[in-house]
């Protein structure tokens, strides 16, 4: 194995990474690696902090999905207190998570990926961005901005701010939701639903245009892991996990996320700050890469039987008519995302009709009653685990964060390898290859600030490395 091509920086994803493509003696792509090159150390510096500070402290991991960290952290805190959050608080938290899924998916689809999808992967890079798209398709961009704004309004109602809110705390939430806030959210719902429906239609239409990409971009069997209601309904925040295999057969069901260590291992790698989780049971020959599983929108729509809402379920049925019960191509993450936007809005509508949502008892108080607690929730990019241990006074002594993007790392490597094999034909890295590799990564909507608990913009390096370990070609971007 030798050659490394480096794509650096990978743009329009959240964070900073590089990619290496390893060639064999015949000059064929033997392997690909996605490296995350930044270090942050949240798990270190959270130690020694009082438990109550953890939600807003860990939320600083990321400005895209702070709500996901607030939620998983608050749930881990609840588990340590040993008390459930009051019913109204649980509904508010669910509402915030739905808003989070809407805004984050809208960002991924419209701002980051739509330039590739609508302008074409070989369009001029100078205009292949959201600004170029605004020129070409102003209506579509307006829809995306509107959806993202609506998601953020939902988040703001619960957490107090659109980004880095603080209303979600250990034991519940800080403030009751007022009827004015609820009515404000209701007022914007119809427009958001209409935009989401139109987006599902648009995205479904793209599947024809990108038939080749659907085949090449990470189409392989894998395990899928996500929260799921016991009856098979899509779930985004509470309850238990379900894992299915590439054929849709249930591997594990109603699994308590608190026991994640029994089933998931975490591998550290010398060339990336991203810890790589793997499904222990699937590992063969001691190679963590064989324990690959996928999380996130694609995993959630594969694991669940249904969304439990009419419009999204119709969209899911149409997708299954086309690709089968299991959507195995990572390119379909995009479509899974827009289906989830629609489903989330429908679930928001149901929550806003629930009178318990406005109940004024929103916070439970207790001293720590347990020494360890795990909180899990579905972040937009997949299942997020926060695992804390505390001392007798409630000061955190150990932290483990298992992040969605990390869990997709093995699948991303495989996806990059497949794309490279399909498009790399010589010792040179062409723009077409770079564009497709970037787009392949972008399908996962990776968030590297979360996955390394790292910081910064996202430039990309891709290296092509020959069997002697020497770099044959290297391209930088960003």
């Amino acid at each position, binding site marked *: 194995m030798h050659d490394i091509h480096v794509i650096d920086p990978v743009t329009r994803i959240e964070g900073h990474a590089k990619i290496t493509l390893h060639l064999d003696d015949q000059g064929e792509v033997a392997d690909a690696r996605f490296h995350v090159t930044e270090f942050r150390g949240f798990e270190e*510096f959270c130690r020694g902090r009082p438990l*109550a500070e953890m*939600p807003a402290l860990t939320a600083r991991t990321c400005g895209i999905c702070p709500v996901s960290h607030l939620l998983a952290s608050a749930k881990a805190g609840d588990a340590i207190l040993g008390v459930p959050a009051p019913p109204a608080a649980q509904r508010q938290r669910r509402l915030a998570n739905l808003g989070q899924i809407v805004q984050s998916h809208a960002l991924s689809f419209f701002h980051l990926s739509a330039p590739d999808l609508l302008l074409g992967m070989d369009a001029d890079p100078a205009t292949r961005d959201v600004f170029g798209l605004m020129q070409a398709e102003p209506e579509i961009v307006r829809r995306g901005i509107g959806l993202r704004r609506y998601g953020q309004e939902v988040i703001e109602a619960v957490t107090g701010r659109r980004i880095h809110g*603080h209303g979600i*705390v250990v034991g519940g939430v*800080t403030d009751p939701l007022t009827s004015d806030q609820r009515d404000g959210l209701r007022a914007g719902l119809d427009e958001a639903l209409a935009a989401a429906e139109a987006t599902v239609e648009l995205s479904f239409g793209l599947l024809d245009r990108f038939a080749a990409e659907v085949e090449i971009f990470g189409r392989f069997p894998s395990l899928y892991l996500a929260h799921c209601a016991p009856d098979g309904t899509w779930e985004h925040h509470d309850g238990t996990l379900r894992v299915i295999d590439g054929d849709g057969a249930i591997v594990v069901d109603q699994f308590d996320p608190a026991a994640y260590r029994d089933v998931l291992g975490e591998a550290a790698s010398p060339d990336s700050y991203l810890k790589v989780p793997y499904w222990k049971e699937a590992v063969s020959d001691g190679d963590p890469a064989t324990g690959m599983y996928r999380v996130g929108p694609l995993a959630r729509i594969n694991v669940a039987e249904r969304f439990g809402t009419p419009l999204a379920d119709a969209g899911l049925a149409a997708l299954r008519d086309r690709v089968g019960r299991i959507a195995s191509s990572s390119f379909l993450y995009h479509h899974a995302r827009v289906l989830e936007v629609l489903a989330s809005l429908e679930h928001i509508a149901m929550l806003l009709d629930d009178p318990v949502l406005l109940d004024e008892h929103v916070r439970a108080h207790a001293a720590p009653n347990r020494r360890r607690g795990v909180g899990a929730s579905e972040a937009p990019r997949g299942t997020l685990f926060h695992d804390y241990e505390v001392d007798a006074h409630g*000061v955190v002594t150990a932290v483990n964060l298992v992040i969605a993007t990390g869990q997709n790392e093995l699948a991303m490597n495989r996806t990059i390898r497949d794309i490279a094999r399909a498009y790399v034909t010589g010792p040179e890295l062409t723009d077409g290859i770079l564009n497709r590799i970037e787009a392949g990564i972008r399908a996962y909507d990776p968030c590297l600030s979360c996955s390394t608990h790292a910081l910064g913009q996202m430039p990309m390096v891709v290296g092509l490395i020959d069997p002697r370990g020497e770099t044959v070609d290297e391209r930088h971007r960003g």
Partner: protein
Amino acid sequence: MSPREPRPTVPVTIDGQEVMAVEDETILSLARRVGVDIPTLCYLEGLSVYGGCRLCVVEVNGDARLKLACATPVWADMEVRTDTWDLREHRRRIIELLFAEGSHICATCVSNGACELQDLAATNRVDHIHYDLGFAPNLPLEPVDASHPRYVLDRDRCVRCSRCVRVCAEVEGAAVWEIAERGGNSRLVAEMDVPWGEASSCTSCGKCVLVCPTGALSFKGSAIGEMRHDPEVVAFLARAREEEEWLDRSAGSGSASEVRS
């Protein structure tokens, strides 16, 4: 002379404004009465004067040696300047040094949005720290003391203003707190440097938490940005005691046996 009778007054000029000051009152007291703003941190109405933070320094009669407004009594024909370029620069440096010394990362602090140090930085236009940080962000110099069942002490957020020391000794009468060591090593300790939860003299009254200007002392269970202090409670208590508000004066001399239940 009874303290309730009016005291003689003396003429003083403060920032060009000619005013009558009450004899023996401090420059700070005069300034506040006539609406001149002098920043303070360790000073708290109702407690003894400490003079530790040096933020309230002013120029008197053009003397290069600055005076503490909180600790300097007025005298006749004094000329005070509170807002010169030198003074503003001086105060900024003090605030920067306080920031450089501890863990003052507002975004992850319980007192974010209700912190006197944060307010001082904003009002005195501190936008950079020109000193080396004595603190690698978020790596604690001292472990958090969460041993008290109701309160938490994070010494890395402490500015050694000693308000807690004074309120505990002077108002609550418990004298749990003391500042140990000197200079950069000085640190707040409970009793003979025991964990707060083991300090048997602590009455758990919480006044120290209410007067803390930063997030060093907080209610246990406070989420980030949630802590709200109430330092004015000390002035209220001091006034109530001075005015004997809780004594039944109609019954006579106001001895303890006559306190209303």
